[in-house]
């Protein structure tokens, strides 16, 4: 992973926490990815059933709306690990050493606070819905499973932020250590490199490689 400075042989607690969380994050993002695939099939099936057989899927809109939570939230921690959530990097990409890790510590604390609040009240939102037996208007599907995804996904997000906080504090104390468990801060040219990786996959780094391969 280019974005993720993880040394797989590293033994410290941050590295271990980092490695143990990653598979769960991958799994949650994979579930979100499968939900996208299912939505693709569902939407296509709806067109076919409605126009060809005149028998649209009952509760189709309710089903789509309930499934949105899986796509909207489950990948949050995965995205955080890979540094995918948008930020303005103009200032932080100029910082080095303790200044950088000091800023990272503060910004991560802010993130932890707000996600913590949202887990708490997201959980309350779910409990109310569960106890009242909330259901969708049209097809009367229960709503609580979809609402439960918010505190679950955000809890993993919170854990990932904790790892990043530990990673930043560790480097704040001693900036000379090998960076572990933090999302790299990229300046604009490094960001461009990442875009290229995303477009071409890991096989390609520059055109020279490709011409060699021919």
């Amino acid at each position, binding site marked *: 992973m280019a974005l993720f400075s993880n040394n797989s042989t590293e033994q410290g607690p941050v590295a271990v926490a980092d490695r143990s969380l990653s598979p769960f994050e991958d799994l949650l993002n*994979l579930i979100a990815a499968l939900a996208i695939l299912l939505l693709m099939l569902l939407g296509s099936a709806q067109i076919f059933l409605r126009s060809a057989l005149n028998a649209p899927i009952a509760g189709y809109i309710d089903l789509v*709306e309930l499934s949105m939570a899986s796509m909207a939230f489950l*990948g949050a921690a995965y995205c955080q690990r890979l540094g995918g*959530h948008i930020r303005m990097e103009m200032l932080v990409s100029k910082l080095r050493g303790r200044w950088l890790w000091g800023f990272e510590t503060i910004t991560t604390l802010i993130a932890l606070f707000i996600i913590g609040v949202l887990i*708490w009240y997201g959980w309350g939102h779910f409990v109310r819905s569960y106890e009242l037996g909330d259901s969708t208007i049209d097809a009367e599907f229960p709503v609580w499973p979809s609402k439960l995804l918010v505190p679950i996904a955000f809890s993993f997000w919170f854990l990932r932020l904790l790892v990043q906080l530990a990673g930043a504090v560790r480097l704040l104390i001693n900036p000379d250590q090998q960076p572990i468990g933090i999302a790299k*801060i990229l300046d*604009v040219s490094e960001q461009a490199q990442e875009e*290229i990786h995303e477009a071409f996959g890991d096989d390609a780094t520059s055109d020279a490689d490709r011409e060699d391969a021919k």
Partner: protein
Amino acid sequence: MIIGIGFSNPLLVGLIGLGFLIFLVVIGVRVVFAAAMVGLFGLIELLGWGPAAGIVGTIPHSKSSTYALSVLPMFIFIGFIAFHAGMTEQLFNAARKWVGWVPGGLAVATVFATAGFAAVSGASTATAAVFSRVAIPEMLKNGYDKKLAAGVVAAGGTLATLIPPSAILIIYAIIVEESVGQLLLAGFLPGAVSALVYAAIIIVWAKRHPKAAPSVSGFSWTERFQSLPGISPIVIVVLIIMSAIYNGWATPTEAGALGALVIFVLALARGTTLGTMKGALMEAAKLTVMIFSLIWGVLIFVRFLGFSGLPEAFTAWILSLDASPMMIMICILLAYAVLGMFMDAIGMLLLTLPVVYPAVIALGFDSIWFGIIVVKMAEVCLITPPIGLNCFVVNAVRPDIDLTTVFRGIALFFIADVITIGLLLAFPEIVTWLPSLMK
């Protein structure tokens, strides 16, 4: 209540909140956290803990679980499949055979190929990256000027955000509560106009510098028609999406789903591996969660702004100005041009629209038209210094073309973009005509 002015002076709380949000974003807090945090504290100040937390706790789920937003993952997925399935080469190849004979033919072909790719992808930088690899070697081999070759690829990438399916236009529609379908349709003509203006300016330049941009000819009609099957998946997806939205035989989500299914099956049939597909899906999921997080984060902030009354106050102030609406519009656009130099387009739109949009509407401008023009502005910023990301992308794929050369190559296309924006200001019908025909 935190500082205790919430009840007596909500407007001041709104202003402080806005200032604090800008501060947090500048020091590098991710936009979703900054917006949600300021929104939460602002609401607490205005309404007290209980009601504020009640509102904030429900927003992520309730705002994400809407049918209108379900179109986003579909369009994002289509874009990622199209990348991984190598459809760019075929597009460029076809465009080269069909328009290579005009002056600056390969550069013109690049413009049309990027426009075609934009029709399945909403990602500007990625389009620039892919075409840096496909089109630049071909142009350099034919003796094209490096500046032109690099510039046309960086600029061509920006077409992706106007030509449907465009993620950023969908986000605009959600934030200002406009019809997603109308906005998608509205982007089509301005995107085409942008491409044509690019092509025209290349031809004019190539006529004056024929050695630096030679035409390539000698393709037979047979060869031309043989190049068409290669681009058929893209044509099919475009036809499905446009006709569904235009004629209303499917919702944007359903059209996106069918488009994704078609391109998914065709890509598999042409030998794209399941592993590659999984990669495309994982990336689509990651981009989806990023966009959704941004949306609910900003909506928490927007709820706070609504309670503070700041948008109304800003609108009243704008209306009280002694200047013509067009003058004010130009000032707003210039402000966006400056802001866009430092911020990502999606983040910039989400943070500014809640305040700016009501004022623009009060001035009598059309909301769909404004969406298109503001997105076009944000795109221009992707090719202008200091952080014209597309230029960096071209330089990163082709380290032999240095950054200064890319930025110099962009100059021509910057002029083209100014012309396009001028056209959109002078003839708003370019934007509003197509959506007005929608059934």
